[in-house]
Structure formats: structure tokens, C-alpha cells
């Protein structure tokens, strides 16, 4: 099962090119999930970054159901996806119920506005769970919800035995007890899988939980590798790059133009240079100034997941590609420079939160704000 945050990443400024790249990756996820034999998926708010329509289309490609009891058509009040399924496993009927937090707005194009809505997930569960309980031995909620909502769900629908948490990208080695339920969290980015083992004996339920770290000790599945290579080829095609990865260029040489150019709000580091020569010079000596080259050298320069932190202004894509926004430039930290240095267009100071958007635990496990700041500090 998957509890959401799968198809699309956070898209602050959805644009056609970013959507196409997202669709390509979502297609890869669906094909590999089909290959792995997933049984159910409950989308979350990021999955709806481009609207409900693309998710619905993606569900047709999946060999498993999408579950969302409280995502409804506004007109008919009927659910868009199945509210739940019942899986019989070794004679035990397990009800899988999909629920999504209604605290986050659905994304999507203007024509979708008012077509769908998220009903209160807890109120929805209170209606469905008693009926579902009569049909199955055990109820499991795939809950793409905030932690307090999950606790509320456990209190309001006590017949839910297990709550598989989405939305919170944290790893919890042990479940959280909430009333009669146990809440499980399984990390993020495909680095872990949560596993709940259970059996029933009479009225007693015995269960244990473990987190499986998906390290390189697990060999790549040959078919998954084929799908991955097809994805990469498709992405290169979309970006107008040659089919075969280009060899790593010499230091200082311009790499393949895979970075998508930001909107006019971003002006590029060359525009900063005339007035900030000293700062520009010290920036050139930092790893930030070589961030894009590290991707090129490892043939990762076409992965949107990597480009977000190795280029500047990523996500503001236009049709063409530009080399001017490669690397972590001035504006990646200080914000878009369009209009600067006009009065009231002072660029922002950089705080730890800004750094941690990219220096997160997965990508930068040794990140220490004070120590890392020294590496990039420049004159004011």
C-alpha cells in the first residue's frame, strides 16, 4: 500500500514543462508499483498539484485501486475513487479505507474549480467504519492526514485497528498508540517501507512493526531498471537532449542545458556581478557554484528531483532551456532579483530554514548550519 505523496512533488508554480516532467515520473511510479504488486494507493495534496483529473487518469493505468472515501464530486456528492476495498488474506478479511486531510486545497486548473471537494475525513470515517466493520475482521486506514487528525480519527472511529500514516515524511520505528488504534509512519522518498505483521487469536490481536530500510543491499529488479532507463530517455527527449548521456565536461565548460529557465523574476548571477563583484568572486569558490556540475558528472542532470536543488529558480520553467540558471546562484538563497536594486526591492537575508529546503536529512545528513554557513559566507 501507499499512503500518498507519490505522483508529484511540491509544485509552488505549476507550469506546462514541469507538469510534463511530473507526468513522466508519475508514469514511472505507476509502472513500477504495478510491477511490485501494490494493492492500494491513497493520494495526498501534492498528488493533486495539477488537479484531480491527472490523478484520475493515472488511476486507470494502475493495476490497483486508488482509495479516497472523502474526495467527492461536488454535484453528485459521490466519491471520485473507491472509498475502500476488502482484501481477504489467509482467511482474514481486511478492510482498507482511504482518507485525505481536507486542510489542504486541491490543486488544478481553473476548469476544475468547484468540481471536486474533500469532505471531513473523520466525519466520513464515522459513517463508513461501522458498516465496513460488519463486512471484515480488521480495518486499516490509509490516512493522508495531519497527526492530530489521525489521533482524532482513532478516537472517532475506534474500530480502525491500524492507521497507516501519509503526509508526515518522518520515520517512526515504533507505532504511536491512539485509543484502540496504532499509527504507523514509514518515512519518505522510497528510502523505507513500513511492515506491520499481525495475527488474531480469538478476540486478541497480536502485532509487531518494523521499518525496512531500502538500502543498496536490495538488488535492482531488471524490469524496474528497464522502466527507469525508459523514463530517463523520455525525460531527455522532453528536454531536447541527445539520447545518450553526454560525457562529463571539463571543469569550467558549459554543461548540457538541462536546467529549465526561471521566469523573469530571476535574473541570473551574471546580473548580480557588476555591483557585487566581491561576493560573486567568493561564491565562485564555493560548492554552490559547482552544484550543477556534480549532477552532470553523475548523469543526473535531467532528474527534476535533483534539479530543484542544483539549479536556481527551478519550477518556473518556460519552453526553452537555459544554461544561465545552473548551479546554486545568488537568487537561490536571496530570492528573485528582478527589480533590485530599486527601493523596496531589497533581497532577503538567508536563514537556516532557507538552507534546509535542500540540505535536508536525506540529501545532506551531516548538515550543520553554523559550519556550513562558514563555507558560503561572503562580504555584505
Amino acid at each position: 500500500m501507499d499512503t500518498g505523496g507519490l505522483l508529484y512533488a511540491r509544485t509552488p508554480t505549476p507550469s506546462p514543462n514541469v507538469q510534463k516532467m511530473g507526468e513522466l515520473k508519475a508514469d514511472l511510479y505507476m509502472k513500477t508499483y504495478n510491477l511490485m504488486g501494490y494493492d492500494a494507493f491513497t493520494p495526498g495534496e501534492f498528488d493533486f498539484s495539477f488537479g484531480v483529473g491527472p490523478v484520475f487518469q493515472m488511476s486507470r493505468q494502475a493495476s490497483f485501486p486508488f482509495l479516497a472515501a472523502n474526495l467527492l464530486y461536488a454535484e453528485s456528492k459521490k466519491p471520485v475513487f473507491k472509498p475502500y476495498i476488502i482484501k481477504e488474506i489467509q482467511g482474514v478479511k481486511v478492510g482498507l479505507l482511504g482518507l485525505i486531510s481536507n486542510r489542504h486545497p486541491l490543486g488544478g486548473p481553473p476548469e476544475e474549480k468547484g468540481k471536486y471537494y474533500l469532505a471531513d475525513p473523520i466525519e466520513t470515517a464515522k459513517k463508513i467504519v461501522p458498516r465496513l466493520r460488519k463486512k471484515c475482521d480488521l480495518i486499516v486506514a490509509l490516512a493522508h492526514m495531519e497527526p492530530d487528525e489521525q489521533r482524532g480519527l482513532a478516537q472517532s472511529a475506534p474500530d480502525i485497528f491500524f492507521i497507516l500514516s501519509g503526509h508526515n515524511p518522518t520515520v517512526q520505528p515504533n507505532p504511536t498508540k491512539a485509543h484502540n488504534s496504532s499509527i504507523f509512519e514509514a518515512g519518505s522518498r522510497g528510502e523505507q517501507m513500513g511492515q506491520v505483521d499481525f495475527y488474531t487469536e480469538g478476540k486478541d490481536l497480536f502485532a509487531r512493526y518494523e521499518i525496512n530500510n531500502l538500502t543498496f543491499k536490495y538488488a535492482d529488479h531488471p524490469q524496474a531498471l528497464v522502466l527507469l532507463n525508459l523514463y530517463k530517455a523520455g525525460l531527455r527527449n522532453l528536454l531536447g537532449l541527445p539520447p545518450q548521456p553526454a560525457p562529463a565536461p571539463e571543469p569550467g565548460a558549459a554543461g548540457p542545458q538541462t536546467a529549465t529557465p526561471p521566469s523573469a523574476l530571476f535574473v541570473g548571477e551574471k546580473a548580480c556581478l557588476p555591483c557585487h563583484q566581491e561576493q560573486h568572486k567568493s561564491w565562485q569558490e564555493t560548492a554552490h557554484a559547482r552544484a550543477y556540475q556534480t549532477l552532470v558528472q553523475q548523469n543526473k542532470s535531467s532528474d527534476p528531483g535533483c534539479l530543484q536543488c542544483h539549479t536556481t529558480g527551478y519550477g518556473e520553467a518556460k519552453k526553452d532551456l537555459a544554461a544561465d540558471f545552473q548551479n546554486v546562484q545568488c537568487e537561490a538563497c536571496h530570492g528573485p532579483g528582478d527589480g533590485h536594486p530599486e527601493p523596496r526591492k531589497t533581497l532577503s537575508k538567508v536563514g537556516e530554514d532557507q538552507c534546509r529546503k535542500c540540505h535536508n536529512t536525506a540529501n545532506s545528513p551531516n548538515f550543520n548550519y553554523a559550519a556550513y554557513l562558514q563555507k558560503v559566507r561572503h562580504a555584505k
Partner: protein
Amino acid sequence: MQKFLLATLLILVFPLSLWGQTPTFDPNRSIALVFSSSVSGEVEPCG
């Protein structure tokens, strides 16, 4: 006397050493629910 016999019988059937113990988990009888969340991200490590 009946109470004494009943208590003796209970102790024989359920020895004191077993009282309060959590039953050991039997993996041979278990059903596994495997799940992932927030998977979206780079498909390979960026380096």
C-alpha cells in the same frame, strides 16, 4: 475448601511464572501489511 482447590487448580493450569507475560509473537501465523509513504523525490541519489 472449594476456593483452595480452585486456586490450586488454576496455578497448575497457568503457572505463576506465565502470569503477566506477553505472548511471544508467532511469525508463522502472521499477515504482513507493507506500506510506503511520501515516496516522490529524485529517482536516484543526486550526488
